[in-house]
């Protein structure tokens, strides 16, 4: 296709992506170097029959004037990146000097908002992704062994958790797991502890959200694996059966190598999606004990008083760096393949 024709065909979609994905990333980058203005304060002298008092109040007029003049805020350089709510360079240095043991140091650092969120996000990715692959694969294997006639409805039932939006999915589970819901109430009875609630402890909240993640993402892995299983060649499997290979050996040495490329694909997509976990935190109202990077950004953006653009943007940029690190191996591999292909 000539370059010119390609250009006109691709222009609309290219323009949409540049304007609304490319530019916002740049805009986020610029915003991250600015911080919201401080409030202008003034001293007000108030006199009554008992004497005069001086109080400091916010000068609303001046504050809003400054905000209107420079809506982006004041230039802050990398200030937002290293402040307490982000990388907290100073605080970490302080903890390093003040704490006695390494455990105590780690404890202090993981209490800082950014590191807390980072650790939750990574833990979530680390537990959800492998389990999604495993559960998806097992479901695919076992559905593949069912009579073809009833597979349709079974597949429909299996993919339900995936097609609802994460907020609805987590709400539906939350209403059951909550202390007043069917599972929560029964657990209380079973454990004989009327105060037991999945929300009351941090560990239980994390486990609940991770279980939700596995529930929500497994169907995707299942669908891809199931399709891949249909393409497994029959001859080697039959040969293996004649040679006396056990079921496990057949899966391990024939099926798995065949679907290996697909496994990396699912792992990659699932990792990308898990890294942006955020809606379940709202659905489970777990803000108290579980925060993710995306949730931090959301929290800054819905701030009541003044939207913390700079803070949200700094967290966003660091999230993008995280995504880049996750994607790097894949991109490097694609680049190598592309070069050898030429």
């Amino acid at each position, binding site marked *: 296709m000539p*370059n010119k024709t390609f250009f006109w065909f691709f222009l609309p979609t290219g323009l949409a992506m540049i304007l609304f994905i490319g530019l916002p990333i740049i805009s986020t980058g610029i915003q991250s170097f600015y911080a919201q203005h401080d409030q202008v304060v003034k001293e007000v002298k108030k006199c009554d029959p008992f004497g005069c008092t001086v109080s400091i109040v916010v000068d609303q007029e001046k504050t809003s004037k400054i905000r209107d003049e420079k809506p982006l805020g004041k230039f802050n350089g990398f200030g937002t990146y290293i402040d307490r709510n982000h990388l907290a360079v100073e605080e970490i240095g302080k903890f390093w000097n003040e704490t006695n043991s390494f455990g105590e140091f780690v404890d202090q650092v993981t209490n800082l908002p950014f590191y807390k969120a980072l650790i939750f996000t990574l833990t979530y990715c680390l537990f959800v992704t492998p389990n999604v692959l495993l559960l998806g694969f097992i479901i695919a294997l076992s559905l593949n062994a069912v009579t073809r006639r009833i597979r349709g409805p079974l597949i429909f*039932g299996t*993919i339900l958790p995936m097609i609802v939006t994460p907020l609805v999915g987590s709400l539906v589970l939350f209403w059951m797991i909550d202390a*007043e819901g069917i599972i929560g109430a*029964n657990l209380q009875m079973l454990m004989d502890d009327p105060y037991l609630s999945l929300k009351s402890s941090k560990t239980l909240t994390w486990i609940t959200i991770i279980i939700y993640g596995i529930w929500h993402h497994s169907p995707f892995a299942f669908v891809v694996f199931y399709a891949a299983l249909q393409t497994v060649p029959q001859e080697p499997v039959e040969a293996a059966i004649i040679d006396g290979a056990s079921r496990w050996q057949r899966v391990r040495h024939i099926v798995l190598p065949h679907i290996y490329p697909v496994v990396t694909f699912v792992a990659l997509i699932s990792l990308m999606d898990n890294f942006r976990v955020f*809606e379940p935190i709202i659905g489970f109202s777990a803000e108290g004990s579980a925060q993710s990077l995306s949730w931090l950004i959301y929290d800054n953006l819905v701030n009541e008083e003044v939207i913390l653009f700079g803070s949200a943007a700094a967290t966003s940029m660091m999230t993008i760096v995280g995504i880049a690190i996750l994607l790097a191996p894949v991109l490097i591999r694609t680049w190598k393949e592309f070069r050898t292909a030429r």
Partner: protein
Amino acid sequence: MEYGLDKRSNALKIFNTTFIIVWLLVACFPFIWTFWGSFKVRADFFSRADWWYAITAFNTLLETGGKFTTDAYSQAWTEGEFWKASRNTVIVTFFVVTISLFLGTLGAYALSRSTRNYAFWILIAALIFRAMPHITLVSGYLFPFFQLQIWGILPTTIVVLVAINQPFTLWLLYSFFKTVPKELDESALIDGCSYFQAFRHIIMPVMWPGVITAGLFSLMLAYNDFTVTALLLNQENHTMVPKIQSYLGTNQHEGNLMWAVSAVVSATAPLFMLVMFFQRQVISGLTAGAVKG
């Protein structure tokens, strides 16, 4: 794997059946339970006293005189203004699907017929764009949108959702157009058609299976979106998902939690119907990128 040689032992068959039944229960029961509970009053579905009430409908009988009540639905749809939210969702979904298919088919067709290097790089760029968390993009939108005073209205959200949706649509339709034989449009070009004419008269009639799949995914994205709609729309223009969240926020109000329950059911039911009808396309779309490499 059904091979004549492969004899399954009974124990394995039983194990397999049990596993599938357990998994299906885990996958579907929450939805069935929510559907059932949406016809009860709050005191039953969220019972402090005894969860068994949700089944016997003890309080529902007391409060409404029947075992089932549609109060939550009628209140959420009228008082809770869920009708407005669903109207907005219909508008947003319709335009997002139409526009992103229009842009996506043109772009993906060009990508599939180009042999240049830049086509490859564009696809890689699209993959990177696909990986961007939506909330980071939103944090980039908010400030410029406030300045331009286009925040809060439906058209802005529609354009943003179209753009966010493009990378996936491009990949999906690209792999679809790759399966359409090149000779088809090449022969039209030899006969003197321009590329646009070839696209219009040769490709368009055969592209519908791919377009339906891509359309379904655009629809699910627009219908299900929370991040963009919650932050880029004002209260008045909220679509269904942010509306459901707003019912949760005002918990003091007695009826509101049940509004959320009935709203969840109302929002999910059409989606399930749709997937039931188009199951084949959804599955082929999910696997298109993966199985072909």
